[in-house]
């Protein structure tokens, strides 16, 4: 536990001193702000402004954002040799992986919290469905955790940050667009199963509509647990190599 906390704190510190993290935050806010403004302008005359517009956009953007947040985490430790030192510190391998994951998730949560300013604006000018907004935010928060766990795994398997980012983006894209494969399958049951396996399948038709379902929470939580578990095994495997 103590080890997890110390690793977590270092990761947060790393984000706060890294220019890349601030650039990501700026891009994050610029894009979501742009989108929110657009939605607001078009909805004025047509419909009520959607409180889920930012989370819905993030469900796609995270495919590219999450790998940037996690690519450094284990790849750099390996390249600089600090992983060897971490593995000789009196902490368990799981402390290292979980501490790093929580660090990334916490930083993402901060970014997500910044976008709450749009909800404040909505409340100030209209009467949005707050339940809808809360559901969408819970959903995208979990969704973000799952994408970061995938990113962390790919950071563990290579020393090269770029490779880590590329591989995790590719994997996330498959998880994101997997539903398309379901659409060209004749078998309805199979299509349903495929859709249930994708990141999208547990977000667009539930959280994004204000629906919090146990199965969707379980999907993201399960994805996080599985990816972290595999990552721990990968980290542990360094103990067995020459």
């Amino acid at each position, binding site marked *: 536990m103590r080890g997890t906390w110390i690793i977590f704190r270092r990761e947060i510190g790393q984000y706060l001193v890294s220019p890349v993290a601030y650039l990501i935050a700026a891009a994050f806010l610029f894009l979501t702000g742009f989108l929110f403004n657009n939605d607001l302008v078009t909805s004025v005359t047509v419909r009520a402004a959607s409180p889920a517009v930012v989370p819905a956009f993030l469900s796609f953007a995270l495919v590219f954002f999450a790998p940037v947040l996690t690519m450094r985490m284990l790849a750099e430790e390996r390249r*600089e040799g600090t992983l060897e030192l971490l593995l000789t*510190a*009196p902490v368990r391998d799981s402390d290292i992986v979980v501490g790093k994951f929580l660090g990334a998730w916490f930083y993402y949560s901060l970014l997500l919290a910044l976008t709450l300013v749009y909800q404040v604006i909505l409340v100030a000018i209209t009467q949005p469905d707050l339940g809808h907004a809360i559901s969408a935010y819970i959903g995208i928060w979990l969704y973000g955790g799952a994408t970061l766990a995938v990113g962390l795994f790919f950071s563990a398997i290579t020393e090269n940050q770029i490779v880590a980012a590329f591989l995790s983006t590719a994997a996330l894209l498959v998880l994101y667009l997997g539903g398309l494969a379901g659409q060209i399958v004749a078998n309805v049951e199979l299509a349903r199963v495929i859709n249930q396996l994708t990141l999208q399948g547990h977000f667009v038709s539930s959280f994004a509509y204000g629906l919090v379902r146990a199965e969707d929470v379980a999907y993201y939580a399960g994805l996080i647990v599985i990816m972290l578990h595999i990552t721990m095994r990968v980290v542990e495997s360094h103990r067995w190599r*020459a």
Partner: protein
Amino acid sequence: MIEVSNLTKVFGTHLAVDSISFEARPGEVVGILGPNGAGKTTTMRMLTGFMPPTSGEAKVAGFDIFRDSLEVRRHVGYLPETVPVYPDMTVYGYIKFWAELRGMRRARRRVEEVIEQVGLQDRRRSLIRNLSKGMRQRLGLAQAIVHNPDVIILDEPTIGIDPQQVIEVRESVRALGENHTVLFSTHILSEAEQVCDRVLIIHQGRIVAEGAPANLRSKLQPHPRLYVVIGGTTPENALQLLRQIDGVESVIPQGEGFILQTQTGQDIRAAVSAHVTHSGCQLLELRPVAMTLEDIFLDIVGRPH
């Protein structure tokens, strides 16, 4: 402090460490000497709890490295061969991080103390990316000693830094030996001699020689060799002349002079000098030939025990 018995590590089909046994008492500086690839790093990695042994046992600070790995790691400070650093951290933050990760609470004072001990007090707020290689080496040493470990393991701490810094590092290792058990590896013979109370020589994963540096040298160089240059005669005559000296086993021409292979344990320099001058020739040069580590290994490994 360190008890190793029959420790073995196999990577696939490669036998990296072959059943080594040794001991290090509290307050002892033990050097592991060996050429690259001899198994020094692998041995150290097993003792730090980084990798489990294939077979055999080892206890560090009284804890078994396999069963009580976490306890072992609490009592060991380790500096790997390439100093592992986080370039974006400050000197202070880096040392504090390792102190806390190794279980120290309220580490602030101790961190300041260690920073002073390694002479980085002027750079405590600097980012590590801006430090020179020698400073990074000292920083690496600082993280290894900050939690006051019983055992300090240093993997080739003097590699790749300039001579002045090498001397500093050797002095710090000596100083550390007063309060800690230090295990350190090197492939420089003279370094091991200067710093260690005891030296283990490892070759191809096995300990081939062990002992205090002074004893080891005589054990290692049972046949001291001399290089002699003689003036005022032809090379053929000089060769004849040298062969007549008592205690000379063989004479090999080399360059403008000769290498004398002497018989076991005799210092024949006086005899050589006297013999050459009496015969009317001039002794231009006479010096012992230092054995390189490679020579020593060839000697040890090639000689039947």
